[in-house]
Each structure stands twice: as C-alpha cells, then as structure tokens.
C-alpha cells in the first residue's frame, strides 16, 4: 500500500501539486488521470522519488519515503518496478540482458538462474523468441512488454507505469492494459498507472484519481467515473467518443 498525505510541489512559484491525499491499494490498478499539464507526471515522479516534494509525506507500507536515507531508498527501489513512457530499455543490451540487468546487480543468482527467471518474465508478457534482439529491433508494443518484464524481474511489490499506452495502436493498448492488470492481481502488486487514455481507464481502473490544475478533484473507480458530477472530469471523460456515447446512451 502507498499512502500520500498533504503533498505539495511547486516550480518557480507555480503550484503544480496542491494538497494531494490519496491511498493506493495492493492488488489493484490505481490510476492517476488528468489532462496534459495537470500534474500527474509530477505526482508520479514524487511517488517514485525522482522528485522531492516541497512538503507532505509518502508512505510505502509504514515507511516514509521523504525521510529515507540513500541506502534505505536504494533498498526500497529494488522493490519497485517501473515502466517508463518510452520503455527506457537499455540500448546496449539485448532483450534478455535488459530483463537480467536488475538481477545482476541485486541478486547472487547464477547466470543459469538469471536466464531462467528472465525467460519466465518474458513468457509472462508473451515475448518469446526475441531474447537476442536489441530494443531498436522491436516494435513499440514489444518494447513495452519487455519493459514490463524488466519491471517485474525482481518480483516487486510496487509497479509504476507512466502512460503505458502512448504511441500504441488501440489493440496493442488493450493487450498491455490487460497484461498490467493480470500481473497486478497475480503478484498482488500495488500498481499505479499514470494515463489519460479513456479506454485504459474504463478497462482496468480499479481505483481512479482525477487531477486537474494540481488538485485531486475526484476519486472513484471505472464503474462510477461515467456518473460523475465533477464538471472538469465530465469534460475530460466526454472528450472520448466511446465514453460520450455510453453517457448519452444511458440518458
């Protein structure tokens, strides 16, 4: 579980996050949604420790991230998997080497054990027969899958995904969404997905937080989002044709 309390962040006097209070539960796809520039990426970067908040606390279980030393943060990070927007696969390594990378650093497993685990993770994300390819030889969807395989390599308790569907076709997007959702439930991870893709939100959003202008305006799930009274969220949702049609159909 991740708990955020009274989180504030500003840049050059401009308030980007304003009193964020939220709880992300284990075994669920927790989503941060909002329009571009609403502050969701800043929130995600604060959550994973790539940015320091101006004030407020972030708890991983009962441990507070903001007060952790370098060594404690390093230990926590080995328990976190991240899928970056552009996958961030290492250009210098093949697919299997990318997945084995965190194992090499943080386990004492033999090479055979590392290969076995990497192959297991790649199988989980349905990437088979591409072990020796380099990232630039893979399609965007394949890169995302390998990114997920690398993120779950050390069996983390927390998984963060930054816009996992950006640049993907609708079909691949849904496959990636379902993969994230299935892995979350299978490994009981606390998953936080940062997205503005309505299809994803309606597909896997177990818990959704809508941010606008740096403020968390609404919290709910994929079943309640279409019935919201929040004007900003309604505008955001209705920008998607599918969601708009569903709402109009209901009326």
């Amino acid at each position, binding site marked *: 579980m991740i708990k955020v309390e009274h989180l504030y962040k500003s840049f050059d006097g401009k308030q980007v996050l304003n009193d964020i209070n939220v709880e992300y539960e284990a075994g669920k796809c927790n989503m941060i949604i909002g329009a571009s520039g609403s502050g969701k990426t800043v929130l995600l970067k604060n959550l994973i*420790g790539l940015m320091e908040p101006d004030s407020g606390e972030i708890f991983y279980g009962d441990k507070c991230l903001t007060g952790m030393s370098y060594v404690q943060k*390093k*230990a*926590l*990070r080995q328990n976190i998997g991240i899928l970056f927007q552009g996958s961030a*696969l*290492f250009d210098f390594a093949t697919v299997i080497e990318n997945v084995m990378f965190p194992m090499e*650093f*943080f386990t004492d497993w033999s090479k055979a054990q590392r290969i076995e685990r990497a192959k297991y993770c790649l199988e989980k994300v349905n990437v088979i027969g591409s072990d020796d390819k380099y990232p630039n030889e893979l399609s965007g969807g394949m890169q995302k899958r390998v990114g997920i395989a690398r993120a779950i390599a050390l069996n983390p308790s927390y998984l963060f995904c930054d816009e996992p569907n950006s640049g993907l076709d609708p079909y691949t997007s849904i496959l990636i969404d379902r993969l994230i959702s299935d892995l979350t439930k299978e490994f009981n991870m606390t998953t936080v997905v940062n997205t503005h893709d309505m299809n994803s939100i309606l597909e896997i959003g177990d818990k959704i937080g809508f941010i606008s202008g740096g403020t968390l305006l609404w919290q709910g799930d994929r079943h309640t989002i279409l019935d919201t009274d929040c004007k900003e969220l309604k505008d955001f949702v209705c920008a998607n044709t599918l969601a708009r049609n569903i709402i109009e159909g209901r009326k």
Partner: protein
Amino acid sequence: MIKKIFVSIGTYMLFLKMVFRKPEKWKIFWRQFINEADKLILSSILLVGVISVFIGGVLVIQTASNLENPIIDKMYIGYMVRESLILEFCSTMIALILSGKMGSNISSEIGSMRITEQIDAMDMMGVNSANFLVLPKVAAATILSPLLVLLSLALGLVGGWIVVNATQIIPPPSYITGIKAFYNGFYIFYSCFKMSLFCFLISSISAFNGYYAKGGSLGVGRSSTKAIVITSILILMFDLIVTQLMLY
C-alpha cells in the same frame, strides 16, 4: 555568469562523488572497463597512428628548414623532433584530437540515455547510474591513455624516419643519432602523466555534460559541443600548469 561557473563546478564535484563510489559488483565493473577500453582507447589507435606518422614527417621537414646552419650538427634535427613529440605533440595535441572523438562519443552516448529515460530507469532500480556508466569510462581513459602516448611517439619517430629516407633532407644516420641523443626518461613520464590527466578531464567532463543533458536531441548535441569546447580549453590550461610545475 560567474555564479553559473561556480554552480557548474559544484555540480561537477557532486557528480564525481557519485562516480567514485565503490562499484556495486566488481565483476560488472571490470566487464564494463574492458568494453570501454575497447571503445575509447583501442578504437583510437588508428586515428592516433595516422596523425602521428604524418606529424612526425612534417616536424622533420619544418625543423630541417629552420636549422639550415652549417655549424649546427644535423643530428639536432632528430633530437628536436623527438623532444617536440614527447613534450607536446604526443600528449597535448593528441589529447585535443581525442577530446573531439572521445568527448563527443561519451557525451552523446550518456546524453541520449538521459533523454530516453534510461538513466532514470537505472536510478529507479537502485543502481548508481553515474558509477555504472561513467567510472569504467574514466578509469579506462585515464589508466590506458599513456599507451597512446607511447604509440604516438613511436609512430611519430617512424614518420620522421620515412621522410628522412624518402627526401634525404638530412642524412638518415644523423636522424637516428639525434633521436637517441640526451635521452631524459622523466620527459616520458611527464608526457604520460599529462595524457592521463587530460583524458581524465575529457572523460569526466564529457560524461558530466551528457549526464545532465536536457532538451531532447538538440540538447544532446549542445551538451556534446559544450563538452568539447570546455575540455579543449581546460587541456591547454592544465598543460600550462603541469608544465610549470613539473619542468621548471
């Protein structure tokens, strides 16, 4: 402007502090060290070799044309070519050339990793990215670069010998006597030391610029250019300082 310079120096020092931590696993470090040695030093051999041979030849012609005095023994031409090569060309000039090749390689590689979030991914795994990516480069460049000095010296002298034989600008035996005359082993040490220092500056400053690159692919290009300009100036500055300290 002055504030900016001091901020950059401070950030560079903090960056070096991250770089010079104990590697997570020595096995990984040595593997990276060998890769970097191949990429930075071995791949420079051809460039250094070709330049050295030609410069050796040019030095012979220039020195001979300036020493057309019957009183001065012709062997001094060989002697002066050797001293020019050891004292300045093999270290400073080669370092300036390498600052372009090695510097742009390091800076653009690390810079593109930064803008594609690969460095963030490493940091988020708990890997000290500066240590993993930069320490093997700095170590390989600093420790192995003196080999390039020795190679450059040898090939520079060979280049001179080829020109002497081809043009008979001076008698070849005089050239051979000259390059063996008044040998001072300290100059070799001085030249190797300078080269190590320059390669430390090239690798660390280029890595620093790449590591903090921002602004997409344009930013990577800018950081690469900045790294080369800064290292070129610093090489000449430290050349003066080290020469004053070690030779006078």
